[in-house]
C-alpha cells in the first residue's frame, strides 16, 4: 500500500469521559493523531467523537471499556486493533475521587478509589506495555496527581493510589526505555473538572485545556515527569520538605 502523507498515528484515550481526557484528545487530534476514545457506556460519548472529528478532521472511534473489569484488560490491545487498527500511544486518564468521609466508613468506596486509580490503571497499562514491547513501538502517558506526592488527611486514599501509579509508571519507564518506548508521568494540580467541582479547599485551579496543552507538549519533548501547571513542581518540593513532625499537625 502506498500513501502520500505521514502514516496516521493513533492514540487510545482510556477513560475518555473525563474533562482532562477530552481536552488531551482534542490537542492530540490537532497535532494529527487519530483517536480511540475508550469509556464505559460509550454511546454517550458520540457527541464528543463527532465534535473531535469535525473540528480536526481526524479519525475518531469509540470503544466500550470498563476500567474496573480487570479480567478484560489482557485482551484490550486486541480489542483496540479490532475496533480501529494499530495504535501507537496509550493515554490512561481514568480516575475516581471519592468523598473522604465516605471512604473511611465504607469498604466499597475505599476499594473503588484504590482500584480505579491504582490497580485498574496498573493492570491495564501492564498489558498494553507488553503489547508495545513486543512490537518495539508505542508510548504511554499516565495521569498521577500532586496528591500522590505527600499524604494529606483530606484525600490520602486517592493520593496513595496515585502515588502507587506514579511508582508503577517509573518502573515501566525503566523497563521500556531500552525498547525505545517512552512513558510520561503527569502530575496535575487542581483542575477545573466535574470530578473536582464543588470540592472544598481548591486553589490555583487550572482549566483542563491548559493541562492538556502541557501534557501534549511534554509528550512531544519526551519529558519523563510533568507537573502541570509548572509551579506545582516547586510548590510540591516545598511541601515535601516540611518535616513530618510538623506536617502531621498541619491542616492542608
Amino acid at each position, binding site marked *: 500500500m502506498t500513501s502520500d502523507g505521514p502514516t496516521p498515528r493513533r492514540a487510545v484515550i482510556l477513560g475518555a469521559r473525563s474533562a482532562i481526557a477530552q481536552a488531551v484528545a482534542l490537542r492530540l487530534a490537532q497535532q494529527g493523531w487519530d483517536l480511540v476514545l475508550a469509556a464505559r*457506556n460509550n454511546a454517550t460519548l458520540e457527541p464528543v467523537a463527532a465534535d473531535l472529528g*469535525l473540528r480536526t478532521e481526524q479519525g475518531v472511534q469509540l470503544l466500550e471499556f470498563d476500567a*474496573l473489569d480487570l479480567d478484560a484488560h489482557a485482551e484490550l490491545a486486541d480489542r483496540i486493533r479490532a475496533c480501529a487498527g494499530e495504535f501507537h500511544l496509550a493515554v490512561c486518564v481514568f480516575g475516581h475521587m471519592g468523598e473522604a468521609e465516605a471512604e473511611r466508613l465504607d469498604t466499597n468506596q475505599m476499594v473503588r478509589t484504590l482500584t480505579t486509580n491504582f490497580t485498574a490503571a496498573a493492570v491495564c497499562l501492564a498489558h498494553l506495555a507488553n503489547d508495545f514491547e513486543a512490537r518495539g513501538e508505542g508510548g504511554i502517558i499516565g495521569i498521577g496527581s500532586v496528591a500522590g506526592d505527600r499524604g494529606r488527611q483530606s484525600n490520602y486514599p486517592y493520593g496513595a493510589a496515585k502515588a502507587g501509579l506514579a511508582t508503577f509508571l517509573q518502573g515501566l519507564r525503566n523497563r521500556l526505555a531500552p525498547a525505545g518506548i517512552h512513558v510520561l508521568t503527569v502530575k496535575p494540580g487542581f483542575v477545573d473538572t466535574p*470530578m473536582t467541582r*464543588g470540592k472544598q479547599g481548591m486553589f490555583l485551579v487550572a482549566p483542563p485545556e491548559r493541562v492538556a496543552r502541557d501534557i501534549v507538549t511534554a509528550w512531544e519533548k519526551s519529558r519523563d515527569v510533568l507537573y502541570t501547571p509548572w509551579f506545582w513542581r516547586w510548590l510540591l518540593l516545598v511541601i515535601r520538605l516540611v518535616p513530618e513532625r510538623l506536617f502531621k499537625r498541619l491542616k492542608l
Partner: protein
Amino acid sequence: MVTAPTPLDNHTPPLPVKEIVYGWGRHPRLAAEVHLPRDLEALRAAVQGHGGATIPRGAGRSYGDAAVAERVICGKSLTHLLAFDSDTGRLHAQGGVTLDEVIRFALPRGWFLPVTPGTKFPTLAGCLAADVHGKNHHRVGSLSAFVEHLELVLADGDLVVCSRKQHPELFWATLGGMGLTGVIYAVRLQLQPVRSAFLHNVSIRTSDLSESCRVLCDTQHEYPYSVAWIDTLRRRGRGRGQVMLGTHAEDDRLQPLHRPPRLTAPTLPLNVVLRPGLSLFNMINYRRQLRRRTTTTVHYDPYFYPLDAIDNWNRLYGPRGFLQFQFAVPFAGGEALMAAVLDRTDAAAPCALAVLKTFGDHPTGPLGFPLPGFTLALDFPRTTAIEAAVRDATDDVIAAGGRVYLAKDSVITRDQFDAMYPRLDEFRRLRQQVDPQSRFRSLQSDRLGLS
C-alpha cells in the same frame, strides 16, 4: 476472577453546586443550585430532579433576571458540534456551543453566522431562547429564521424534535420563550456563505436623532448590516452620531482571529461610568470622524464585537451593576417616542451607550421581540431613579405601540408586559400543555406572571 468494587452509575450527575448567579447586568443576584450536565442523559436527569423553580442558562449573557432561579441548568458543558455539511452550510450543534466557537469552526470553511448580536460569547441555545437579532434584522430577521430544528428537553424529561413542520407551536414558542418551554439540547442551523473575515464599513456622520433615523431608513435596503451609535448626553443635537453600514468583503481572507481579550475589567467597589467621562468619550468618538462619510475595511471581530475586546466590561459599573433598556417601536411616531424616552431617562442617569437600528417585518414566535420599526438600546449605571424612569418610559413605549426586550429586562411590571405582548395567551396555553406544573420558572417569569 478478580475482586472489583461495584461499578458507579455513569449517569449519576455530579452533585449540584451552590453558586451566586446573576445576569450580565450583575443584578439581581440569587444563591442557586447549579447543574452542569455533560451529556443528554445528565441533562434529562437534571431537568427531572427535585427542587424549586428551574431555568436553563447558557453563558449568562442575558442582562436581567431571565436566567436566574433557585435551580439553574447550565449548558456550558454541552459544547459539542454534532455534524456539519460544508456544501450546504448546515450546522448541527449542542446548545451550549458559543457563537465564537461557531465562527472559529465555520469561517475557515467559508461560512459565518447568518445573524449575530453584539457579543460573540452567548450560547446558541441562549440566543434562540432570547430570539436575538443582529444588525441585519431589517433584511433577514432574527437568528430564529435560520433554525431548521430544535431538540428540546421538556419538563417531563422527554426529548422532542420540533421545527416549522413538526410541533410548530412548540418550535415558535421556544424561539424567544426565555427557556420557559424546556431546555434546548441541540439545534440545526443554516449558516451563511462568506468569502472573507472582513467587512466593508461605510460610516455616515449625523447631526441629530432625526437625521440618524432618516439615514438608517434611507440606506437599509442597500446594505445587509446597519446600525447607529448615537450620543444621548447632549441637550442640543441629542441623538447625533454615526450610522454604520456594512457588507461582507470578498477577498478570500478567511482566518478568524484567535486573539483573546487583551483587557480585563477588575471588580470595582464603585461605579466608574460617570457623566463627565462619557461626555468626553462621546465627543471624541463623534469628532474622530472628520468627513461626513468614510469607508473602511474592518475585521469581523472589532466590527461586530467591539465590547468583547474588554473582558467583563460590566464590572466597570461597580457593585450595583447596570441596566440596559431596549425597546422596539413602529416607524410611525417612533422618532418622537425615542426623543421623549431619551429626555426622560437622561434626567435620571447618563446613558453610557446608545445603539439605534431598524427592524424589518419577519415572522416571530408569540414572545418574539422584533416588530417593524426602530429599536433603541440604552445602557445605564443602575440606580433607583433610572429603574423608575425606565418603568415610566415603558409606559410611553406601550402607548406608541412598542415593546420591551425580555433578554435585557429586569424592571418592567406584569401589567406592562401584558400590554406589550399581544400573543401572550398563545404562549400561556402552550406552556400549560408542555409544563403544567411550572417546573421552568425564573425570577423574570415570576415577576411577569408567565409561570
